[in-house]
């Protein structure tokens, strides 16, 4: 199409008006939203991160915000926690999602029912889940510690003990998100050709060998998708943590996204934006190499 427009020079004007049935201006309406509300703010954040910015004025201060971000213990804690939260949730979603995926593609009763039950929390509002589990995990009146007490275990203060708070929220995140991982694994496992399993049966392979040498390697695309999706979600995670602990006790369960909100609330817009830039860099620096690496390894295999 483009070579044709070049060679017929005299009729170029006329042709360019009807040259393609797929007009480039179809990009424009979507592009306007994307440009104005995504690209411009992202670009502007690179400047505002270098300023002391309040309701009243903007003052350029260089990299002071970033220095503060990596010096103040409460902010550094949020930085470290972000990685912990993302890796714990992705790891558990991969392991549990794979096990549930294998279970829910095997010949068991009530498979459809179980799939629906595992998946439904994915669709429920995060705030609703947070409110509910905050009550269920209450150290004194909560259902979980009540149940543990009946079998003689004294449960920890899930959300009130600094050592547990972030991990507890991560577990609730897994509870809510494992259904999506399971669904992705089910789609991946169902796509594995049955011939492999038949050949393995002829060779007398055990159930575990089937899993180890057929299901596990061939569901690799599903693993890649689950890891990348949960890393993106986990690194940016905000709403569940904010509903359940507000980053507390103290700042022990803060993550970058909650630091951004706290600094914004306090009126430190420059510092908040610096946190945002750090988050953008963290997400890009982890997700892009991981996805390139996982996809390349997959191509070699």
């Amino acid at each position, binding site marked *: *199409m483009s070579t044709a427009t070049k060679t017929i020079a005299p009729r170029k004007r006329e042709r360019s008006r009807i040259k*393609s*049935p*797929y*007009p480039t201006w*179809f*990009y424009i309406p*979507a*592009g306007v*939203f*994307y440009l*104005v*509300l*995504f*690209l411009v*703010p*992202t670009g*502007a*954040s690179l400047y*505002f991160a270098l300023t002391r910015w309040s309701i009243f004025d903007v003052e350029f201060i260089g990299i002071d915000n970033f220095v503060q971000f990596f010096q103040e213990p409460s902010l550094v804690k949020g930085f470290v926690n972000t990685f912990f939260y993302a890796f714990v949730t992705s790891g558990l979603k991969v392991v549990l999602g794979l096990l549930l995926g294998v279970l829910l593609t*095997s*010949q*068991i*009763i009530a498979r459809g029912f*179980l799939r*629906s*039950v*595992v*998946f439904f929390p*994915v*669709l429920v*509002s*995060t*705030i*609703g889940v947070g*409110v*509910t589990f905050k009550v*269920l995990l209450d150290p004194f*009146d909560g*259902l979980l510690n*009540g149940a543990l007490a009946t079998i003689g275990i004294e449960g920890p203060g899930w959300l009130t003990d600094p050592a547990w708070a972030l991990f507890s929220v991560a577990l609730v995140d897994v*509870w809510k998100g494992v259904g999506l991982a399971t*669904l992705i694994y089910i*789609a*991946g496992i169902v796509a594995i050709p049955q011939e492999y399993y038949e050949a393995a049966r002829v060779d007398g392979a055990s159930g575990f060998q089937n899993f180890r040498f057929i299901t596990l390697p061939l569901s*690799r695309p*599903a693993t890649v*998708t689950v890891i990348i999706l949960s890393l*993106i979600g986990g690194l*940016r995670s905000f709403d569940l943590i904010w*509903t359940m602990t507000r980053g507390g006790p103290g700042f022990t369960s803060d993550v970058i996204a909650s630091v*951004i909100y706290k600094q*914004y609330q306090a009126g430190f817009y420059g510092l908040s934006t610096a946190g*945002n830039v750090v*988050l*953008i860099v963290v*997400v*890009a620096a982890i997700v*892009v190499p991981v996805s390139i690496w996982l*996809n390349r390894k997959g191509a070699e295999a």
Partner: protein
Amino acid sequence: MSGINRVKPRGVIVGVVAIVLATVVFIVPFVFIFLTAAKGQTEASLLQFSWPTEWLLLDNVREVLETRDGILVRSFVNSAVLTVVSVAIMVVLAAMVGYVLQRRQSRWNPLVNMLVLAGLIIPPAVVPTIWVLQGLGIFKTLPGLIAVHIAFGLSFCILLFKAFVATIPRELDEAALIDGAGPLRLFFSVVFPLLRSVIVTVIVVQSVTVFNDFTYALYFLPGEENSTVQLTLYNFQSQGLNQWSLLFTDVLLITVPPLIMYIFFNRQIVAGMTSGAVKG
């Protein structure tokens, strides 16, 4: 041999164990929400997993809807408008991009593909977005939040549309062009109707996402009186009122729309959320 006969005895045992575990882990929390929402206030404040002595679910629903002059009703209207308008615009705009992106090879394609992926991965810069919205005069307004959702949701929709347009034969386009259709007619009267199944998927998945969104509402449409259902629930919770029965009635109410979606569009939701699982 019907499917049920192939289930071996071991499958029955494993299935029963799985049902018990799934019930404890996944169903008990929902039953807890329901039971607490049906209790009276004193009983609910014990936070126990028990049968209500008196069923007050309807009274609780009425009371929570009447709280503060129907703030919850207003937020439900807001959430409905937000969801419908933003998803409708998102679908049309994303379909246009996905269609041209798949059909036309040009030097813009690598750039557009990269921007789409960036929109999927990069977390939005919130305070500068507020700055832009203020400049446009739509900060703290429903149209502002709608625009934000469109901008942030486009990428996911474009990917789905692009993949689906590839399955529509080009011969169809050519036939329509020979019949004298222009680019607009070709897209809106010929191609767009053929996208129906993926459109349903996109609508369902994005509706649930937009309806459940909390973070963007918190930043871009803050306030007590005129917000979305998620923000109203958050405000109820953070005001620390110990009216647990009303709080859980609210949780129950905002769980109903996704539940209805799931019952009717189970297949589309699954298709949309697992897209890319097989090819990676």
